[in-house]
């Protein structure tokens, strides 16, 4: 890691320096003021950096060297499934037959691409235990939005307009209530019980004629499997509501249990998490949804169907419409498809079994050093609490910052909200045991430092190009634009 700050590219500017040379103009020059009405023209000169090509290359190469990524080191960011993305996916996505096709091409000339989309939809349906897929949503929260639109369309289509509420557990991802609000649903919160699962008795009192549905992640954000899911599904269905499966944590259950069999009616998958396509800044993502046979008619389109051996686009009969331009993020589908085919059903099951084994190994290795609020077998991730360290004046944020000094990306902190000083760790299946052991060792060391030398934590990080950032001021008074 480079232990110095890198100036902004604007600060590298030298007046008059050029990084390009344009060819001579071979058409008559027309002043821009004759082409664009004056009121739309800017008066102030833009302050663009004046740098040579070499300076541009060095600037961004230097920045890239202080990047942290899963290609650089362990990235235990809970709830994000930062697994390794196989490089062969990039080779496949670069094949000209995929990379160079255009969405305006006639369907007859892109049958291979359509077949891939059709097959991916079928595989996701098989994996989820449901019937029909749309690949359209561009990310997980977009999938939530699409799924809730489908649920709303289903109720409206039945002439049942009084269902205005979606029930969500207190451990849910923040995107769940946000998606509800976007669709115009009110959120009703159901608390967790002492085992970290949905409190079924409370749920019974919350459902009723206003219940449009329930959104659940299973395993939930505590990394715990909700064993009462069959009862929960029955309670919601009996009240006339539908069940939405937030697939954020699907990496724990591939080939082991299917959301459709648990009673869910709508599922979204984050292809960029579970199916190993680039993630975060490396996106774009994809959040396909899979629904029951009854809901297929409401899916956003276009979807691919097969007709006499040919693949073509169509809109489902009562589709909620388009939610994405063209056909979504095709090259992401391609990578997910490659991942599914290269693993096969046994391989996908092994992915989840290994992810769960890794998380349990790390949880048991750390529980003597950090408070473990829910002491039971976890799924693909687990949540510790920094509350023991708080006695020494150290907060979870300080533990996370100290991890940066040891060269790691910090875990997810302060989430889920129902655990005090939460630290959420998700190792994923792709890490070797040696990496996990090294991280465990560092976490134990930090627990000792918190007791013996808390200053080390509260002043961390020291080994990064910038030390402790003033996040509060950055958020309160953000400087969003560079100026001299």
């Amino acid at each position, binding site marked *: 890691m480079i232990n110095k700050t890198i100036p902004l590219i604007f600060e590298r500017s030298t007046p008059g320096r050029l990084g390009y040379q344009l060819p001579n103009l071979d058409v008559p020059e027309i002043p821009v003021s004759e082409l664009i009405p004056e009121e739309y023209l800017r008066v102030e000169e833009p302050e663009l950096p004046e740098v040579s090509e070499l300076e541009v290359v060095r600037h961004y190469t230097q920045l890239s060297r202080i990047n942290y990524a899963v290609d650089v080191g362990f990235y235990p960011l809970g709830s994000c499934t930062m697994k390794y993305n196989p490089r062969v996916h990039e080779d496949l996505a670069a094949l000209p037959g995929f990379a160079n096709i255009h969405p305006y091409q006639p369907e007859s000339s892109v049958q291979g691409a359509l077949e891939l989309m059709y097959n991916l939809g079928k595989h996701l349906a098989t994996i989820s235990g449901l019937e029909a897929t749309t690949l359209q949503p561009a990310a997980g929260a977009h999938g939530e939005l699409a799924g809730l639109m489908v649920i709303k369309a289903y109720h409206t289509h039945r002439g049942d307009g009084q269902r205005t509420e979606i029930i969500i557990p207190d451990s849910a991802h*923040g995107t769940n209530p946000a998606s509800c609000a976007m669709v115009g649903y009110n959120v009703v919160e159901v608390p967790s019980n002492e085992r970290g699962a949905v409190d079924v008795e409370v749920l019974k009192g919350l459902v009723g004629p206003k219940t449009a549905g329930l959104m659940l992640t299973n395993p939930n954000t505590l990394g715990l499997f909700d064993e009462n899911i069959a009862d929960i599904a029955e309670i919601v269905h009996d009240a006339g509501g539908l069940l939405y499966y937030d697939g954020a944590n699907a990496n724990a259950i591939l080939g082991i249990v299917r959301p459709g069999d648990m009673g869910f009616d709508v599922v979204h998958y984050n292809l960029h998490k579970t199916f190993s396509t680039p993630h975060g800044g490396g996106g774009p993502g994809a959040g396909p949804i899979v629904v029951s046979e009854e809901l297929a008619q409401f899916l956003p389109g276009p979807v691919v169907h097969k007709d006499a051996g040919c693949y073509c686009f169509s809109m489902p009969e009562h589709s909620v419409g388009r939610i994405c331009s063209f056909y979504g993020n095709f090259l992401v589908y391609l990578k997910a498809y490659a991942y599914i085919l290269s693993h096969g059903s046994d391989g996908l099951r092994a992915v989840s079994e290994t992810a769960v084994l890794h998380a349990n190994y790390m949880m048991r290795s750390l529980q003597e050093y950090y408070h473990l609020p829910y002491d039971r077998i976890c799924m693909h991730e687990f949540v510790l609490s920094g509350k023991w360290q708080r006695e020494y004046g150290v907060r979870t*944020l300080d533990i996370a910052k100290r991890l940066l000094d040891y060269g790691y990306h910090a875990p997810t902190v*302060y*989430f889920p*909200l129902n655990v005090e000083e939460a630290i959420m760790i998700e190792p994923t299946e792709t890490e070797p045991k040696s990496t996990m052991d090294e991280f465990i060792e560092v976490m134990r060391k930090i627990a000792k430092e918190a007791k013996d030398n808390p200053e080390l934590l509260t002043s961390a990080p020291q080994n990064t190009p910038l030390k402790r950032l003033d*996040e*509060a001021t950055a*958020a*309160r008074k953000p400087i969003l634009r560079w100026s001299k």
Partner: protein
Amino acid sequence: MSEKILFTKEHEWVVAKGNIVRIGISDYAQNELGDVVFVDLPAVGDRVEEGEGFAALESVKAVSDVYAPVSGEIIAVNEELEDSPELVNESPLDKGWIVEIEIDGGAQLGDLMNEEEYKAFLKEA
């Protein structure tokens, strides 16, 4: 009603003067939230129902609702919080007040705790 400070289980404080109550969050609450970076205030004239979230505090950690301990109408909001959300951290019980609500005729303040009871409540939690 008296002017003494009362607390809710959701960690709001309430000071009542006649049928007007001023509301903020407790010192414990601001410490748990961490640095508040944005306060989403309601509009003067908005109606609130007891138990309903009427404002949101965004901290570096999370966004949390502030709940109404009583039904009524918002008659004043602390506009200083728009530019200086840090007042919630620096002076939670005074300059960091959030709104004033005029209580509906006949409405009662919910089941609130006095300072001692609140301290005991925090110890239990």
